């Protein structure tokens, strides 16, 4: 239980850092760390395959997308950071306060629920479920990947006047 609390605290902290940090690059790194912590939590919640996916895709692929986007849009200089810091602080100081208050309030709620556990043992093999039972989702995934490919081709295409 304690381990879980630590992991969740770490998750929230890294998310907070992601949101608060000034440099975009650090923010992206923070996101990757958040993903990694989430993956650990997923391991603990008996979902190893999803965790591996989360780790590889979110901490890997999405991180890469962000890094490339950030490099294209340009990194900012240190002077700009100093200048921005004050402005940002003015907008973001409220966030940790809200998070802490929310955390305190939520932990005070006594939650109890009875969940619908399966009567018979159910198929819990991800591969079987994904490949045999959710063909429609797979079809959707294929189409989305195709659409994503079109999107990348269309939106990332070199501009003629450049």
């Amino acid at each position, binding site marked *: 239980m304690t381990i879980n609390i630590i992991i969740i605290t770490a998750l*929230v902290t890294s998310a907070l850092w992601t949101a608060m940090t000034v440099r*975009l690059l650090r*923010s992206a790194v923070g996101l990757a760390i958040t993903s990694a912590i989430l993956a650990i939590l997923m391991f603990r919640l008996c*979902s190893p395959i999803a965790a591996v996916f989360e780790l590889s*895709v979110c901490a890997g692929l999405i991180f890469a997308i962000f890094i490339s986007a950030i490099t294209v849009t340009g990194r900012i200089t240190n002077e700009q950071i100093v200048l921005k810091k004050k402005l940002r602080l003015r907008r973001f100081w409220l966030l940790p306060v809200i998070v802490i208050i929310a955390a305190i309030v*939520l932990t005070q709620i006594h939650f109890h629920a009875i969940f619908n556990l399966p009567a018979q043992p159910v*198929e819990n093999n991800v591969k079987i479920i994904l490949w045999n039972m959710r063909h429609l989702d797979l079809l959707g*995934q294929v189409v989305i990947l195709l659409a*994503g490919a079109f999107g990348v081709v269309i939106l990332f295409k070199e501009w003629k006047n450049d």
Partner: protein
Amino acid sequence: MTNDMSQLFWMCSIGGILVFIIGIYCILVTFNLIRAIIGLELLTKTVTLFLILAGYVTGRTGLAQALAITLIVIEVVVIAIAAGVILCVFRHNKTIDVKLLRNIKG
């Protein structure tokens, strides 16, 4: 057993809700388009967590993982498209300031 489960569920939910708050705040307050997308990404993390959690407490981890994997794949594509849009905006405006993306009013 159920009590433990209940407690774990609630704890993880609290974590999810806090991350959700952070994500929303990030989207609302930031002046940077990329950070807005990062905020969205945080929100998606929450949802992934919720799905896995729901699978775990009801003993259907297989289904939940299948859903989570699908979600992750879709999420990547959305992020890629959003990044593409941001890049195009950058090429127009030479900046990714949110405040310059308010031309369509009223």
